[in-house]
């Protein structure tokens, strides 16, 4: 064979080998592809099934969702919506809004600025403000009212939107949700009305109870000034004591309702802490002695003299705890200790050797009206509000209450209060004593429809040589001030013909000489916003019944023209 032929054969052999290799590789690839195709088919089925399942679930979710859900694409064209939205709009099918834009679909129920913001965020309209990128308007939502074809009435809705984006952060559309808040608002309104009704009821009850209470207490004071034998004086003291207890109960209920309504304001000022403690000691010395309990008051030497806080409320909270300690300790001792617990922090601790509290009851201790061991403690009186009020007051003051107890052995209650330290110079002049003065030339008009109340006021003012003129309703008061000059008016609130509020309005509209007369509200209405309510109505001061004599006299002293005061 020639070399040329040999070379040709060698080349052909190489070609055959190459083709053989290629064929082998293709065979390998083909066999692998067959397996791939099978798995691809299976994969398609799985993906389809998964997609179908997801679609089915999504449809069910949207169909049964109580919210109306609408999807818009990145051009603001409606993509999908829940059936509920179609029903709401009275549309027979999606076809009626398919292809329509956001504005066209929503402009008759969504606020204009809400639609504008969506369009801005989707880039469908020029940016109007610096907060263009801010999606908070969408996420915070907006309230609206719209007619529902389902309910056949106008209803309240809340609309909010969420911008949708893909994994690259590009906006792909908008999810708009509407949910019906009509019933929620209705419930809220009902609750508000119920609350208002409760407040009105409390105001009425407060007034109806406090009015006769005021008379009882006032008259006992009157009676006390007369000649009484020992037996009569004893009965009178019991009447006074029961009246004071009843008044305390009413005040507790009123305080508690103020706290519940977040209407109780603290009156913070610098006060003498040690004086408060001593006053409490004196108050409870008598009670403790009656039960033959040892009452120890331990004041830490490092305790500041003057602190900033609401003295009245601190006294009230501490009195509740001391009162409980006394009530629930049949024998042994009560220790009241007061010490610093940190910078501007004071710990008031009352420990007793009383009946103690079961561990399972401690959690409910501060629940209002809750009382424990009712059989065992059947002789112990109380509404069950004291600790609830104490805890609320302590919380209001920024402090906290701690309790520890061993049933059958005793309890320890601690109040820890933040009380900023002050100095003696910070304390303003105290007026807890009645200013000594007379005003023989002062003309004071007293307006009240209850004769007894008028008698009581006259009795109170007599030592100060203040003469009064009595009238029985607001209408008479308005006439009286136009006929004669008065230096001061004491006005009740609830009266026939014309109440105190209306009377004051009329008086304030009279010529200035008459209109400027100082008017003090003397009323049994001690609820919620009483003080601000009366001062807003035109009164210069407010004193609740039963009348605190010192408060009344000092207020009169402040408001009478100085030239009429004789010290």
């Amino acid at each position, binding site marked *: 064979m020639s070399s040329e032929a040999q070379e040709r054969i060698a080349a052909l052999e190489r070609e055959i080998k190459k083709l053989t*290799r290629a064929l082998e590789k293709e065979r*390998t690839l083909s066999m*692998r592809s067959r397996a791939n195709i099978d798995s691809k088919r299976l994969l398609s089925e799985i*993906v389809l099934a998964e997609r179908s399942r997801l679609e089915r679930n999504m449809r069910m979710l949207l169909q049964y969702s109580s919210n109306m859900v609408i999807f818009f694409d990145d051009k603001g064209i409606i993509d999908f919506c829940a059936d509920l939205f179609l029903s709401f709009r009275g549309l027979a099918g999606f076809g009626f809004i398919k292809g329509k834009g956001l504005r066209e679909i929503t402009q008759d129920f969504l606020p204009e600025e809400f639609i504008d913001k969506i369009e801005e965020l989707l880039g469908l309209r020029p940016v109007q403000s610096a907060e263009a990128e801010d999606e908070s308007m969408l996420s915070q939502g907006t309230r609206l009212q719209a007619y529902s074809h389902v309910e056949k009435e106008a209803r309240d809705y809340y609309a909010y939107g969420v911008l949708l984006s893909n994994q690259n952060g590009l906006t792909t559309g908008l999810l708009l949700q509407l949910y019906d808040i009509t019933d929620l608002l209705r419930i809220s309104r009902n609750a508000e009305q119920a609350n208002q009704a409760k407040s009105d009821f409390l105001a009425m009850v407060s007034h109806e109870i406090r009015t006769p209470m005021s008379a009882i207490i006032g008259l006992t004071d009157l009676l006390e000034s007369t000649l009484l034998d020992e037996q009569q004086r004893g009965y009178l003291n019991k009447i006074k004591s029961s009246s004071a207890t009843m008044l305390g109960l009413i005040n507790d209920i009123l305080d508690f309702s103020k706290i519940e309504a977040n209407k109780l304001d603290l009156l913070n000022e610098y006060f003498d802490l040690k004086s408060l403690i001593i006053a409490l000691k004196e108050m409870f010395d008598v009670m403790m002695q009656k039960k033959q309990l040892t009452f120890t008051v331990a004041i830490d030497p490092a305790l500041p003299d003057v602190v900033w806080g609401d003295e009245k409320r601190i006294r009230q909270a501490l009195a509740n705890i001391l009162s409980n300690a006394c009530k629930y300790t049949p024998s042994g001792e009560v220790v009241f200790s007061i010490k610093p617990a940190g910078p501007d922090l004071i710990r008031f601790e009352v420990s007793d050797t009383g009946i103690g509290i079961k561990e399972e009851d401690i959690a409910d201790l501060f629940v209002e009206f809750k009382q424990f061991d009712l059989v065992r403690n059947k002789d112990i009186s109380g509404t069950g509000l004291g600790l609830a009020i104490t805890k609320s007051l302590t919380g209001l003051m920024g402090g906290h209450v701690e309790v520890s107890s061993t049933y059958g052995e005793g309890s320890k209650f601690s109040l820890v209060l933040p009380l900023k330290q002050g100095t003696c110079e910070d304390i303003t002049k105290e007026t807890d004593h009645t200013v000594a003065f007379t005003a023989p030339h002062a003309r004071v008009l007293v307006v009240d429809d209850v004769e007894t109340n008028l008698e009581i006021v006259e009795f109170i003012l007599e030592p100060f040589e203040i003469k009064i003129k009595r009238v029985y309703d607001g209408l008479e008061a308005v006439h009286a001030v136009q006929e004669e000059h008065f230096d001061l008016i004491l006005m009740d609130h609830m009266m026939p013909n014309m109440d105190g509020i209306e009377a004051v309005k009329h008086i304030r509209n009279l010529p200035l000489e008459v209109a400027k007369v100082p008017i003090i509200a003397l009323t049994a209405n001690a609820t919620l916003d009483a003080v601000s309510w009366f001062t807003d109505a035109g009164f210069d001061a407010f004193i609740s019944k039963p009348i605190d004599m010192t408060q009344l006299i000092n207020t009169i002293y402040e408001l009478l023209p100085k030239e009429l005061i004789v010290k």
Partner: protein
Amino acid sequence: MIKAQTAFTFEVDDVEAAVAEIKEQLDLEALGENAIGIIGALPAFLQTGVVAALQEELPFNLVGKTTIASSVQDSDDSDQLSLLVLSSNTVEFTTTLSEPITGDSTEPIEAACATAIDHCTKTPSFILAHAPLLPAASSDFFIKSMNSVIEGVPVFGGLAVDDTLDYHDSQVIYNGESYGDRLALICFCGETNPRFFLATITYGKVFSETGVVTSSEGSLLKTINGAPVSEFLKGIGIQPNKDGEFIGINTYPYLVDYNDGSEPVIKIMYAVTPEGYAVCGGDIPEGATLSVSYFDAGEIMESSEALSQRLAADILEKGANVVLAYSCIGRYLTLNYETTAEMKLLHDVLDAADLPRTIIYTGGEICPVGSKDDPAALVNRAHNSTLVAVVL
């Protein structure tokens, strides 16, 4: 600095012609003091003696592995011998070949690593690993063994593969010889600042159900969420055929989160045993969280495109001298009749960078991953069905 040149040949049978063709493409005068040749070739090039002849003619060691396909920048057809020549005056390339590996002991791997590093006169900056495809030794086996010796040196590389149905011709190439059971290492000694890239799976392709690995033994994944793997697969809709076989199970890779702060990696299942356990392409440790994904040609091209763009941007920003990429044979085969599409895509995108590059298909990839919080905190990992690349 590392310089790179590439060369290729389709000539399998005419050894002389093949060698001449390769030499014609290389500028041997331009090589630095140190040089190494990284080779990827069909087994036929070994069988006909082309590789051995090249080793005799070229002035540097040839280290690499058999593959089903490879390409360089001037040729994106696949049935070729691809050669990437790296040279440098500042970086040394130390090479070692391990003793035979059976999978029972890590000692041959550890010894090879220790030798490679010992031969370095400079600090090793990364290791290029060419591992054999062994039933008893997954790529994780190599990683774990190497990590115990190399102390934080990043490892890049892959497992040998071939164009047969059962990969019986898979070989590691070392200095012109081929080995079916040994590990060949190239240790880069000196500063190289390698940058690593991975193309995995887009999250949209993941089944929503996740599972916690509750029992596994190396690459045998036994239970997920307390039940055999087969139950988990059925739960997400992957059903066995009437004979109880899960056909094409390698189409459903796992995205595995090791829950150690590092980025998740892909592992594939090769088969499901009668007990319902999955034989995987690497270790999936107990406590790891996994989701099942699915591979199709579209996903491969999407992920390759994403990686190419990231590579291009990185090269534009930081500059580079060479790109070496390894991609999984699973990706090649999933592309069906467009098997070269991934390589073509990479070359098309990187053409603008105009630098030497080689893409070789492997039977398992080795590439470091960063932590979720700090991409620079690298952890050596083994991957399946992944395209990995290193830029020098």
